[in-house]
């Protein structure tokens, strides 16, 4: 007796096929994996660096040849993944979680920093139905996938930087209301720091636009069993990571609290 999908939970060994330096702190790691090639935008994998850790990473590339993750080095495990070279091996299970539900109509994508990672395969999937993409980062260097998105989207790409080094100066949440005043959108898909997401949903609610966000929590089992990744009654690894604006309405901890590795409730850092 096994789980629903064959071998989804068993660690595969994958070999790095290519790496792409996206920014000075973010790298895309490309590899081959049959199960991940069927991943839907929004899903994540558990990446195992033997001897070190096993952490969740959004699938940032679902292509014909390769699949990929984009890692920002923020700690020991992400640094180890960042340092992977061609032919390095790591362990993998998944893909896990739900995915962005694509609605028909004009789409707006809102991404902050490395939050663009799970949004990129969504943008690619929308293909010729080019979405408008509002992307922000602290500085020009950190605008993830800027070049390929500019080529693909042209004037549909709007960028903001906090220091004004590229595009409009400010946060995406400064620009978003102006954008929604000018154009009507069927749905907003967003990923980034949680306070940015909270702001985004407040604005979406004000303009009565549908929205789906990708949330991040400390994930341990990735199987929906241990409860470490819960936000109130929702399991980010199993009920999410994608949540609609409606499902988050009564979730008091959204934008305020998360659980630390011991399960203690702590405030979300600004």
């Amino acid at each position, binding site marked *: 007796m*096994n*789980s629903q999908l064959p071998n989804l939970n068993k*660690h595969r060994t994958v070999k790095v096929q290519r790496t792409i330096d996206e920014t000075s702190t973010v790298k895309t790691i490309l590899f081959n994996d049959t199960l991940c090639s069927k991943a839907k935008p929004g899903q994540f994998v558990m990446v195992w660096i033997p001897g070190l850790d096993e952490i969740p990473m959004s699938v940032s590339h679902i292509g014909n040849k390769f699949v990929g993750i984009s890692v920002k080095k923020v700690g020991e495990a992400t640094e180890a993944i960042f340092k992977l070279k061609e032919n390095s091996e790591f362990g993998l299970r998944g893909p896990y979680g739900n995915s962005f539900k694509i609605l028909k109509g004009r789409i707006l994508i809102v991404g902050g920093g490395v939050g663009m990672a799970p949004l990129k395969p969504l943008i690619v999937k929308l293909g010729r139905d080019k979405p408008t993409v509002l992307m922000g980062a602290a500085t020009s260097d950190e605008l993830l996938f800027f070049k390929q998105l500019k080529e693909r989207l042209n004037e549909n790409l709007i960028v903001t930087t906090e220091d004004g080094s590229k595009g409009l100066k400010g946060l995406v949440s400064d620009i978003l209301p102006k954008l929604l005043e000018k154009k009507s959108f069927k749905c907003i898909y967003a990923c980034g720091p949680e306070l940015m997401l909270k702001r985004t949903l407040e604005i979406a609610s004000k303009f009565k636009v549908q929205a789906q966000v990708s949330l991040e929590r400390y994930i*341990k089992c990735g199987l*929906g*069993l*241990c*409860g470490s990744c819960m936000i109130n009654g929702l399991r980010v690894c199993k009920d999410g990571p994608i949540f609609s604006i409606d499902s988050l309405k009564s979730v008091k901890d959204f934008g305020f609290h998360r659980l630390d590795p011991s*399960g*203690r409730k702590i405030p979300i850092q600004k």
Partner: protein
Amino acid sequence: MAKISIEVVGLKLKNPLMNASGILGLTGHSLKRIADSGAGAVVSKSIGKDARLGNPNPTVVEVNCGLLNSMGLPNPGVDAALEEFEELLKTVNVPVIASIYGFSPEDFSVVAKKIDSLNFSAYELNVSCPHVKELGVEIGQNADAIFNVVRKVKSATSKPVLVKLSPNVSNIVEMARAAEDAGADGLTAINTLRAMKIDINFGRPTLSAKIGGLSGPAIKPVAVRCVYEISKSIKIPIIGCGGITSWKDAVEFFMAGASAVQIGTGILYSDLQIFEEIIKGLTAYMKKKKFKELKELIRLAHREDEKV
């Protein structure tokens, strides 16, 4: 309509199903989620005196017919647990059992005393923890240690005390007897089996803690055997646990001697719908076999041995 409600250790259960400790019991909200999924009672993640971060990942790995876990008892500690569960305990409509752990009898009783004023209905003692005085031995592997822990907790609280037994022993009936002699009100059988998976690609155990606990369908025959054996010699009620994924599994446990059952790894395969699924299957079975009450199923498999 077959009656599947039952009273166990003084707890009135609308149905005999609970989650196993460690499955979604980390926060009040997560326990509410299980209650909303239809469980007759819910069991918290093991609470200890001090906060623990748990082990680094990997902490779970799926194996054939089961799951290996070595979470490492992550929990926010009893003081944070007080805050965390207070709200839930005011609003939840099923009994909530607090699982508690410690490394000595004192540890267990400190935790029990601290949370005694909260609305937990009972305690389940997780004795599958290393004994602080005896290296390499779990409390649950030593009859005297079990006896001392139960005695200490029973003197600290007037609430029902269950002991969750470890199967990693040569004689589980001896352990059950020690718990009963010390005054335990009931037993949960069983906890996980010590086990390991080695990744042959990387040449190392997959779990960061190397050895973990095996749960799921693979251990069900062991768990059923334990319940059956304990039920032969011990009078206090047993809650069966180990590899239940369907109503048929639950019936095996009732027949072996369990008055209620816990579901853990089963949620991996069927998610939280499993509670409603089992309730449906169990009531249909009882109707078909003309059982009016759950009581009629309990210890049924002993019938042959006990004919005079």
